[in-house]
């Protein structure tokens, strides 16, 4: 288990838990980010910028800032095939 911020790029990840304040969690829920969703980090902007995260469960892309990405715990899913 690791924070989304440290997780490897372009690998399927499962959201284990979302830490952080109620306000932030509510915003993530509203954008369709929930526990157990499968996500993937596609890209990161330069200079410790935000992550581009694709939620494969609800099929949407969201830019997530560093501070928030550190509060999302994920685990790498075993490779299919």
């Amino acid at each position, binding site marked *: 288990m690791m924070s989304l911020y440290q997780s490897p790029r372009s690998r399927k990840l499962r959201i284990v838990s979302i830490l952080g304040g109620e*306000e932030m969690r509510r*915003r993530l*829920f*509203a954008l369709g980010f929930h*526990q157990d969703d499968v996500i993937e980090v596609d*890209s990161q902007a*330069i200079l*410790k910028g935000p992550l581009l995260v694709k*939620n494969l469960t609800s099929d949407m892309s969201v830019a997530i800032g560093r501070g928030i990405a550190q509060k999302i715990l994920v685990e790498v899913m075993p490779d299919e095939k």
Partner: protein
Amino acid sequence: MKNNSPVVILIGQPNCGKSTLFNAIAGYKAETSNFPGTTVKHTHSVVNIQGRLLNVIDLPGTYSLNPSDPAEKVVLTHLFQERPDLIINVVDASTLGRSLELTLELRELEYPMVVALNMIDLAEKKGITIDFPKLENILGVKVIPTIAAYGRGIKELLEAAFHCLDEGCPVSSPRWSKDVEEEVERLADKLPPDFFVVANRRFTAIKLVEASQQFCCEVLAEIDPLLKKNVDLAKANIEKKRSSAAYEVIAAERHHLALKISEQSSRVQRRGPLSWDKRLDSILMHPVLGYPILAGIFLAFFFIIFRIGNPLEGVLLRPFDNLKSTLPGLLGSGLLYHLVDGLILGIAGGIGIVLPYLFPLLFLMAFLEDLGYLARAGFLLDTFMHRLGLHGKSVSPFILGFGCNVPAIISTRTLESQRDRIITSLLIPFIPCSARTTIILALIAFYLGPLWALGFYVFNILLVAVIGRVLTIFFRTPSPGLILEIPTLKLPSLTNMLKKTCLQLKSFLRFAWPILIGGSVVLSLFQFFHLDKFFNSLLSPLVVQGLGLPRELGMTLIFGFLRKELSLIMMLQALGVNYQDVLTVISRQQVVVFTAFVSFFIPCLSTFAVLWKEMGKKVAFLSAGLSTAVALLVSFLIRLFG
């Protein structure tokens, strides 16, 4: 609303094509109100369809009915206070799973509802096939497939809407897992009989459980301690059963139900090769390549506007110049001559100087907006915005500000924190809007060359950064982090971009142009009665000693408050020369000082009004003071080093 026609509300998540749908419906319109800056809350249109009137209201996009920013609160106000006769829920078919979360929440209201399943073409491209009858069956709500951008499905949607209004169409709330359902139902039963019920008892109970602590429960404890106890009990029970917060459990219930419905009613075939938008996106959002592209887009933006605007300006102005040169022969030099001269200058200024730049600018803005580039710029620039104490979500309002500051300030409603809103709203008036771009292009690019104008632009943006940096010293609370949806890239439709551009051009012609004409006629009259000398000598300490400009320009600076372009048109009038001959009376440096002062000196009347309305009197006056100070400072500096 004055008439008794049924009220139809359009609700949907951001980027679901709701406004496009609204425009497609309002295409049938009899009368519409769409004044930028006055109808800031929503767009409202009285639509005449087959002889029947409908009040159609387009609300800002919202992810859920638990608002997290001021734009989303507007949605709730409308839903609850002006109880609509019908809801049209616009759903993005290409992201069915998460879009249905809002649909489920709307069903809880049990208001009559029709679902417009929009952008089905996009869904098909993504390999998604939706079984419409099945979806309709599961949801218990009429589902109409539409492609709003091409006007497809609109007729069927309206027929379904009328059917719903005439015959009624009962909607029932979705039920959740038993353990959660029990608690909600128990709480609904315990609501006191005189309690203010929104929509229905169950919905009210859910919202009480879901609401944030201070939002409902501190107030509730004061009014009704017993009910507060029941709400707390329901929450505690849910939390005990599921070992997570009650609001989270309810959000998860909707999430899972929505995913389940989406799986039942649609099939996804994974496409092999990457589609064009994915490939384009991987370049646009590339951590390194993205930045030169961003800079390139900005440069292209600038040069296209100049390349189109500049020659067009020459062509459009020539007949007016010819007309003007024949005037003294026809009318002599009396009052009539001055009146007609002012009138022609105002008309020519609007059509000949402003329009050639305004049209390409609005069109390119519409292109960037419709493409979905604004959010991408937000992603790329987030890091830099952090240096200003803001984050990437403010980028979109800033970019909109290049079109017009008024909608830009309204769009700060999408920012969650009040602090971010204040800083962003104070910075937006420094963004060179279309009016000021016109001035920069028509003066600096025309007399000094396009590279100088570009330099002015770059300086302007650096200035915004510096002011932002200074402002954050006074606002210490940290900004909440970035969570920003990156919508799918969409190939903008030409008709849509043209429609958008024309709507804005129309509003320019209807509201701004008369001010330009009126302003130059007033100046003509002032000149005839020699009143201008009086005002100019009053202002001359500032204008002549302070800015080093000819004293005749004094009044023109003041009139810039009404419309920034008015300063430009009045300047020509006050100097008494043709556009081509300005450099015979003032120097290049004076041109730059004039442009800088007009650009930065107090926000124009509409911007000031919208600042007042959105952010309060204090922020409006703070902004006026700040920009006056900056305008003076910058003008002095240019004079000093120029």
